Every structure is written in structure tokens, then in C-alpha cells.
């Protein structure tokens, strides 16, 4: 049983946390692609700046002496998400809307989004330097340990408070998004526009409003994903820049334009990365007792070495593009 608990600690929890972050980022990318038809690279910077906004708010809270029962990062999350949504709207208004008005091709918008990435990245580094920050400098990161000796495990089940809250918050927001997309008038308008923008416009849907709502949702979710990533690891200026490609992989694997696909793709990539670098010997060790001497398990038996963790996402991406370019949920074709 020790092995099972170890597996849960190392794979199930870590994979779920990573998958949640990927999924939240991928939803934004996939929605923007569905409505505006371009791959929004600057999403990583929306995530990072969202995390820095939350960090500043949390620092402000502790400076004013406000003590909260749950990590401050989660308390300030709604305000940070609001600001993140405003930032996304502002970036659209300042950089993408003029290009769209000119009738620029999606490719031009993609390049513009890279320009935005560089500018925001430069600004963040200008103000915060290249160092790393932690949300838990003034408060302790609570760790839950559950004694599992009842089912015969020598190890406890371990996860941190942010991890538990993270999975909870993601689940809540995904369900809220589901109801928004399927029940509300605006959500239905969004899906209609993603299906066929021209048809949506002639049937009287306010496309400008739909575009704004898309940016609000994408910005808020990106801010949430960035903050949660910073709560789980540390906050640094290239926080999300390094994981934007796995997030794109998640969106493509799920099917670009498909919000549910993004969730599935995010979890798939998160678990695949975690499983690929997992050392199977730790779980299969009891087998050594029954295996013959010449077939003893080596000390490490992982599918790929740890250095190649991020590469797993790219391999999945390339294989998806080759075998099923529309992704799991039949998104936009390649």
C-alpha cells in the first residue's frame, strides 16, 4: 500500500495540479482562437502579469495587517482576475483591435502577439528584476498529512493547502464556464460566433461585445492560472513564458476552439508529463521479491529522464498534429 500512496503523492496530485494550470491557460487560448482566429502567444504574459498583480495585492494585504484563514493569494484572486481581465481588454484595444480594423491576416495578429509578449516581458523584468518571489514569505504554506497506516501504508498522504484549493477553484470555475457557455445568452452567442462568425453577425449577434467578453474570460482565467502556478512553485518573470508551449499543446490536443477539449487536453498533458518522468521502480519494487535475479529492476525506471519533462508535451503535440490534427474534440482543422 505504501507504493500506492507514493504513486498518489507523486503522480495523481502533481499531475492534477499541473493539468489544472494547463487547462485554465488552454481555455483562454482556445476561446481566443475560436472567436478571433489567431494563436495568442501573449497569453503567457497575461498569466505572468496576472500573477504579479495578485502578488502585489497580497503584499498590500499583509502590509495592511489583514490576516486571512486561507493563503492570501486565493483571497485576492477575484480582484486580481478583474484587473487581469482589464489588462487583456486594454492589450486588445491597444494592439490587436487596430490591426483587425485594417483587416490584417491572422498571421499578422500572431506576430503582433509576439511583440506584445516581448514588451510585457520586458516591462515585468524592468520592474521586478530577474529574481524570484514567493507568496509565502509572510505566511506559512500549510501541508496536510493524512496518516494512511489504517490501510497498511508507512507513508502519509501529503498535499499542500494551495494544491487542494487550486483543484477546487479550477473545478468551480470550469463548471461556471460550462453553465455560462450553455445556459446564458452571451455564452450561446460566443459559441455561435466560434462556429461561424459571419452567420453570427448577420443573425444580429453583437460581435464586438462577444470579442470583449472573450478577452474578459481569457484574461481572468489566465490571471487565475498564473497566480496558482506562482502559488504552487515560485513567482518569476519567465513563469509562464516557459510553459506557454505545453499550454498550446493542450489546446491543440483538445481541439482548437473547443473549450471542453482544452480542459481534457490540459489534464492529458499534465498527467502525461508527470507519468513520463515518474520512476516506476518505486511502485514496482515489491516485484523484485518474485522476479528472478537476472530480471531485477534497475534503480531508476522512468520512460524519459527528468530533463526531458517539457519535451513530452511537444512530442504529444507533434504526434497529434500527425495522426489527428483536429484534436480529441474535433476542433478547427489544421
Amino acid at each position: 500500500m505504501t507504493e500506492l500512496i507514493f504513486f498518489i503523492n507523486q503522480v495523481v496530485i502533481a499531475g492534477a495540479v499541473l493539468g489544472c494550470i494547463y487547462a485554465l491557460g488552454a481555455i483562454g487560448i482556445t476561446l481566443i482562437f475560436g472567436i478571433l482566429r489567431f494563436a495568442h502567444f501573449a497569453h503567457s504574459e497575461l498569466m505572468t502579469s496576472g500573477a504579479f498583480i495578485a502578488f502585489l495585492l497580497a503584499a498590500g494585504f499583509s502590509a495592511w495587517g489583514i490576516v486571512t484563514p486561507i493563503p492570501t493569494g486565493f483571497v485576492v484572486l477575484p480582484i486580481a482576475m478583474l484587473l487581469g481581465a482589464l489588462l487583456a481588454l486594454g492589450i486588445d484595444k491597444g494592439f490587436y483591435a487596430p490591426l483587425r480594423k485594417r483587416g490584417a491576416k491572422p498571421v499578422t495578429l500572431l506576430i503582433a502577439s509576439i511583440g506584445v509578449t516581448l514588451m510585457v516581458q520586458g516591462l515585468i523584468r524592468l520592474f521586478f528584476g530577474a529574481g524570484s518571489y514567493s507568496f509565502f514569505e509572510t505566511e506559512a504554506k500549510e501541508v496536510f498529512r493524512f496518516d494512511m497506516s489504517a490501510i497498511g501504508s508507512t507513508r502519509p498522504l501529503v498535499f499542500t493547502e494551495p494544491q487542494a484549493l487550486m483543484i477546487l477553484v479550477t473545478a468551480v470555475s470550469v463548471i461556471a464556464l460550462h453553465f455560462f457557455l450553455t445556459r446564458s445568452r452571451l455564452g450561446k452567442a460566443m459559441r455561435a460566433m466560434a462556429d461561424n462568425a459571419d452567420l453570427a453577425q448577420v443573425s444580429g449577434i453583437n460581435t464586438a461585445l462577444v470579442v470583449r467578453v472573450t478577452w474578459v474570460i481569457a484574461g481572468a482565467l489566465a490571471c487565475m492560472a498564473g497566480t496558482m502556478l506562482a502559488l504552487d512553485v515560485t513567482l518569476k518573470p519567465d513563469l509562464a513564458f516557459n510553459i506557454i508551449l505545453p499550454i498550446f499543446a493542450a489546446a491543440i490536443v483538445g481541439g482548437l476552439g473547443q473549450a471542453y477539449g482544452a480542459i481534457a487536453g490540459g489534464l492529458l498533458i499534465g498527467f502525461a508529463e508527470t507519468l513520463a518522468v515518474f520512476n516506476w521502480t518505486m511502485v514496482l519494487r515489491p516485484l523484485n521479491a518474485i522476479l528472478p535475479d537476472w530480471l531485477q529492476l534497475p534503480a531508476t525506471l522512468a520512460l524519459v529522464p527528468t530533463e526531458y519533462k517539457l519535451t513530452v508535451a511537444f512530442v504529444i503535440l507533434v504526434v497529434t498534429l500527425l495522426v489527428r490534427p483536429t484534436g480529441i474534440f474535433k476542433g478547427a482543422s489544421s
Partner: protein
Amino acid sequence: MIGRSLGLFGGLFVLILLVGWVLGAPFTSSRLVEAAAYALIALGLNIQWGYGGLFNFGIMGFLMLGGFAVTFISFPHDPAFWASDGPALLGRALLAFAAGALLVIGAQQSHRLGLRGAAKTVAVVLAWFVAYCVYRSQIDPAAAYIEATGNGFVGGLGLHPVLGWVFGGILAAGVAYVIGKICLGLRTDYLAIATIGISEIIRALIKNMDWLTRGTLTVSPIPWPVPLPQQYQAGGTDGQMSLLLARGGFLLLAVAVLGIALWLISRAYAGPWGRMMRAIRDNHIAAASMGKNVTGRQLEIFIFGSVLMGIGGAMLVSFVQIFDPSSYQPINHTFIIWVMVIVGGAGNNWGAVFGAVLIWILWVVSEPLARAVFDLVSYWSSSAGWGAIPDIESRSAQMRVFVLGLVITIALRFAPKGLIPETVRRDA
């Protein structure tokens, strides 16, 4: 149009002179050599994007391949390695690789044996898995052995660096062929993401295959194709002069390579081949209906562009004399090239060269410039009683990225065709 180009190049020349006057001749000469290499890389992207409309965001991968190639070819020969068990172990790994490849090919042809549908898919996946395990079982001990003995890597071949540049081009061409076969059917944004993904895979491999590339431990000094400053100094030339002479020699060689590439691709552009390429770029469906082999031509141009990138990457590594896989970043090695081509003018070779030199100069001067501005503001704010700006050194280094982003967004907004746009010749 010609007048405008001449004016822009004249302005660039004045800018270079100004930079040389303010920051010193040795600094500027180094930057010029790098600018020549970047111009070659930008030409490579210009044929892929400007001629062919292919969205290659994996430039960093090709630069790394070029860098690895020149390191492997020109770094001195290591007799200790060739006398050890290393080559034999590597040979066994190569055999394992070949066996694995045969297995995979066999599985892919298994429909001839009557395997169809799901059964074939299972066979292919199983074959990949078994091949991977067989290869890992041989390469892991070989890598561990090589990394533990001697210099920790296979060393080089000790050949002339220019051969290394050629090999860089060949290696890039081979990899570009594979990537092109996989990805070129994809639509633009998918192609961009796929190529970024592949370049990240290449980076991870080169960074972590310590037995082959020495990984993060870096390889240096890599020899120059022309005499080094130290050789001039040994001949009795004084310090600064020898630096200038040596870098001037390198610059001449780099500009010669650039000139040949520019001449060749301009000839190709003006000929029927270039016309066909533009036809495919502007409307590939119409081109296909005229009987042009669109995928074949796109693969061709993807390979040609990648060759130039491989050579340029090899030149850069030769020049700085150190191969450090961890110094490669998408911003410095992929996005900057895009900014060069877009600002210069996609589809115009002179535009690409102009953009490359201009952006590279902007990139290197924005740090000292930002420092000067910060110093000024800091002086002003501390005399106003608000305190000085902390960490000016590290902050001004980050300004380069911001300037790059600013330049590309301004260019897209106000000069979307670039400073020296493509000239479309219409024969009446």
C-alpha cells in the same frame, strides 16, 4: 524605391559609425561580424517566409544544429576518447538504433502481412516502444561511460571550421527535411507552434546529450577559420590593432559568404523558380491547379532557408568560440530574426539584410542606451529627493526585450510591409 533604399542604407552606415565612435571600434567590429551572421540567418527566414510564406518559428533549433556542427567538426581531435571503449559502445548504440528503425518501418508496412485498422496501430505503437527501449538500453551505458571518462564528451574531429559551417548547413538541411515532411501540410499557426515545439525538442536534446555536446558544461575554445588576435599579437601587432585585424578578417569571410548567398537567392528569385514560389505563396490552390507540386516546392524552400540558418548559426558559434547550449533562448534566437525580417521587409533580400543589421545594432545598443537614460533619471530623481533607481545594471539589460517588442508592434502598425518592401515586377 532605389533612392529610398540607398537613403536607408546610408542612414544605417552613419548609425554604425556613430556606434563605433561612442562605444569603440573593437566592440563595434564584433557586433558587425555577428550582424553579418544574423543577416545570413535573416535571408534564410526571408526565403522561407518572404518567398514561400512558410511560418518557421523554430529558427533557434537550426542555429543550435549549426553551432553543434561546427563544434563537432572543428574542435580538436581527442585521441584518448578514440582509444577508449567509447566508440565501440557508441557503435552498439548505433546498431540498436538501426534495429529499432527497422522494427518501426516493418510495423508501418505490416498491412502487407494482413494487419489492418486497430491491430496495425497497436503494432506500430508497440514497435515504437520496443525500439525506444532497445535504443535506451544501449545508449544509456555508452553515455554514462563517455561522460565519466576523459573530457566527458566525444571531442571534435579537428577539421577546418569552414567545413564545420558546411556541415552545419547539411545537418540543418537533413533535420529540415524531416520537419518539413511532418509539418508542412499544416496551416500557418499550427506550423508555427509545431516548429517551436520541434526547436524546443532539439534544444532539450543538445542540452542534455552531454556525451555528444558536453551540454551545459560548454565547449571552448572553438578555433577560428582566420587568424586569431593572439596570432597577430605574437607577430608584434599591438592589442587593439590585432583585435581589429582579426575581426576584420572574420568579417570579410562572413560578408563573402553572405554575398554569395545573396547573389544565389536573388538569381533564383528573379528566375522562373522564384515566380513559381511567389505564385504558391499568394495562392497555393491556383498554383496547384496549374500543375505545380506545392508540397514539394515548399519542402524545397524550407530546406534552403534552413541551410542558411544552419550556416549562420555555425558562424556565430565559431566567432564567439564557445558553444553553450543553455545560452539559446527563443527571444534572442527566433523572435529577433522575425523582427529583423518584418522590419526590413519580407520578400526583399536587401530588406532582410538591412533589417538584420539595424535590429542587431538596436538590440546591442539598447542596453547601454537604457543605462544612460536610467542614470540620468536616477541623478535627477535623487537630486529631487526621491532616491535613486536601484539595480540599474540588471534593469537596463532587460530593456532590450522591451525595445524589440516595441519595434515590432510599431512596424506592424505603421509599416506592415517593412522599410524596404518587396518590389512586385509586372511585365507589361
